[in-house]
């Protein structure tokens, strides 16, 4: 009983404080970036990992260098969206209410689609309080094609670009004659499959696609029947966009069923996945990704990674692009000379060419706000890995690189600028 009344009371009190102290927060000496991603629930570790990298990058790359404009510091403000679209929109409103004008989000394309819509509507309805959406991880191609808008910037290579790079590498491997495609049944999984079919057809017409299927997302208990199909199909390689427990389940089942060939993936690393695969994945798991950790591209990159690992031993730099987000945003704010006029900041960010800490050039393409950068194919291995994942001894070692992948790719985006 007292448990009830007490929590009710504290809730009521804190609510009035939290909700009451609103728009006053925009202090001149800090520029706040709202980090809206899952910090509780099944994907919390991914969210927390991203958050720690954001905090680290803001401190290392901006604040310790004297900040932006007249010494303004970056501050990352975390908001837990529980990977729900509805909750994200609530947190977005809370963030905007606190005077935050930069929104960073990445986990789940579904959430990103909701946020980009909401940001577009908000900016139209509130021209004096516009915000920017810094998408650092959601790779559904639609976000920079059909659904693109002026306020959205994507710093990761999208699913099409990654597949373009992946098939470049696969095309040069003459051992691959038969490919099996499998993915989660939703927009991203479908995008991966469609891109794979398209690119393989163009680059290696002789390669046979022996399987192309989607399984329900997050609902499959046992991947063994799928693994049986893959093994029986005689595939020389398989491609999957699976993430989270779907990636682990599929990968383990396939390896256990006796599949000996390469498994090309998008997200089979870090967050416990690397540790779970361990030795079983050696020589089989390949990842298409941006941001090279191993071997380190420069002393600066190595020092940055080492310092992060020392500061957050539980986490890894699973999303290297976060460093690019912070550096490019800082530059855009400096170039625009303002952190409040979003049109100016967005215009500064459009078309920006940036030398990333990860050794690549990053170009924020103006026509669709898609970052163009080097994309790597890395192997899950324990050999020559300076920076491992999950403290497991295993990590990702870059095997081949596609320079400025898909730099001249088409987009259906018709950007409407204010």
């Amino acid at each position, binding site marked *: 009983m007292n448990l009830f009344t007490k929590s009710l009371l504290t809730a009521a009190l804190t609510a009035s404080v939290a909700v009451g102290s609103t728009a006053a927060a925009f202090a001149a000496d800090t520029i706040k970036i709202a980090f809206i991603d899952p910090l509780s629930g099944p994907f919390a570790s991914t969210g927390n990992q991203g958050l720690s990298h954001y905090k680290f990058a803001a401190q290392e790359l901006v604040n310790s260098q004297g900040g932006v404009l007249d010494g303004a510091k970056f501050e990352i403000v975390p908001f837990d969206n529980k990977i729900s679209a509805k909750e994200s929109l609530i947190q977005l409103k809370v963030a905007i209410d606190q005077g935050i004008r930069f929104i960073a989000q990445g986990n789940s394309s579904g959430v990103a689609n909701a946020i980009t819509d909401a940001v577009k509507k908000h900016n139209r309805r509130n021209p004096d309080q516009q915000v920017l959406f810094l998408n650092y991880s959601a790779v559904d191609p639609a976000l920079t094609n059909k659904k693109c808008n002026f306020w959205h910037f994507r710093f990761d290579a999208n699913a099409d670009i990654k597949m373009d790079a992946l098939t470049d590498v696969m095309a040069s491997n003459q051992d691959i004659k038969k490919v099996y495609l499998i993915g989660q049944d939703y927009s991203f999984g479908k995008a991966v499959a469609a891109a794979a079919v398209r690119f393989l057809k163009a680059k290696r017409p002789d390669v046979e696609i022996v399987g192309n299927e989607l399984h329900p997302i997050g609902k499959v208990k*046992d991947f*063994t029947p799928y693994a049986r199909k893959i093994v029986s199909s005689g595939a020389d390689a398989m491609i999957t966009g699976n993430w989270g427990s779907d990636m682990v389940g599929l990968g383990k089942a396939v390896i256990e069923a006796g599949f000996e060939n390469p498994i090309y993936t998008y997200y089979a690393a870090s967050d416990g996945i690397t540790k779970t695969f361990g030795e079983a994945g050696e020589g089989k798991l390949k990842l298409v990704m941006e941001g090279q950790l191993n071997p380190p591209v420069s002393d600066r990159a190595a020092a940055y990674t080492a310092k992060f690992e020392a500061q957050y031993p539980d986490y890894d730099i699973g999303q290297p692009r976060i460093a690019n987000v912070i550096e490019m945003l800082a530059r855009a704010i400096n170039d625009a000379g303002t952190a409040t006029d979003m049109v100016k900041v967005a215009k500064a960010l459009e078309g920006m060419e940036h030398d990333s800490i990860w050794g690549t050039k990053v170009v924020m393409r103006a026509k669709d706000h898609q970052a163009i950068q080097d994309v790597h194919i890395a192997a899950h291995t324990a050999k020559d890995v300076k920076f491992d994942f999950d403290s497991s001894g295993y990590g990702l070692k870059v095997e081949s690189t596609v320079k400025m992948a898909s730099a001249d790719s088409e987009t259906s985006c018709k950007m409407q600028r204010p």
Partner: protein
Amino acid sequence: MSLFIVNILDGLVTGLLLFMLCSGLTLIFSMMGVLNFAHASFYMLGAYFGYQISTYVGFWPGLVLAPVIVGVIGAAIERYGLRRVHQYGHVPELIFTFGLALLIEEVVQFFWGKSQMAFEAPEALKFAAFSIAGNAFPAYKLFMIFIAIGVFLVLLYILTKTRIGMIIQAALSYPETVQNLGHNVPLIFMGVFGVGTAMAAIAGVIAGPVLGTFPGMAVLLGSIVFVTIVIGGLGSLWGALAASLLIGWLQTFAAAYNLRMADLLTAIGLSEPVDMAESMLSDLWTLTLPQVGPILPYLLMIIVLALRPQGLFGKRET
């Protein structure tokens, strides 16, 4: 054909695993009349305890210790929680077990966090027992089959051949009479609940390395377990066995064969729409069997409940 045999075996593993959960659940139901929504949560606890113990002393002690611990926890929950709620009626009982399922998931996340545990099968069983046309069948899965059958035989023996089994069976139907004969019925209830949860925990320990040990594992399996015992007939051990195997094979075969709706529709004389993206029926045309696989058990349950509410083997209506 060889793929068919492999799938039969895989479906058997899934089915028997389901059965280890369902047998305990159905036993608890026939005794107390309450569907334990949290049953799969005990399966999850089993996997986590099994993992934790295996990090200290290896897999095998975990296989023995984890079910014991979970059984004790289960018995304690019956004694101090369920028995208390029992007086309010069946609906609050069901709600209690529902709340328990939520709570156990949170407790697991509290201690072990949210990511997947690196729970591995023992080294001794990490080899392919045999291989059919390139498809390896891991020794560990063979081991799972043996454990499940062993548990079933022991259970059957206890229930039908021993004195304690007789008392349990009598207590199922005539609790008052058994009580009047001097038996401690509440203690029997507590014992059955403990044993049922311990069996779920055994399933958890042996499934953890294969199906993954993560906080969502209970939810993923929970509603299927329900569906299975409802289809089999609440309270029927043989019904649970039949339904478990049925669901196991149903799911395995649904996932294993890429039957496409488009083929079916063309076979009955319909022509595929030219522009799939614009068609209102595009979802129907692109449907495949593996996609609908996970909803088949629910469909089956609704049909069974609507046509034969007592389930396939059930004797009485719920």
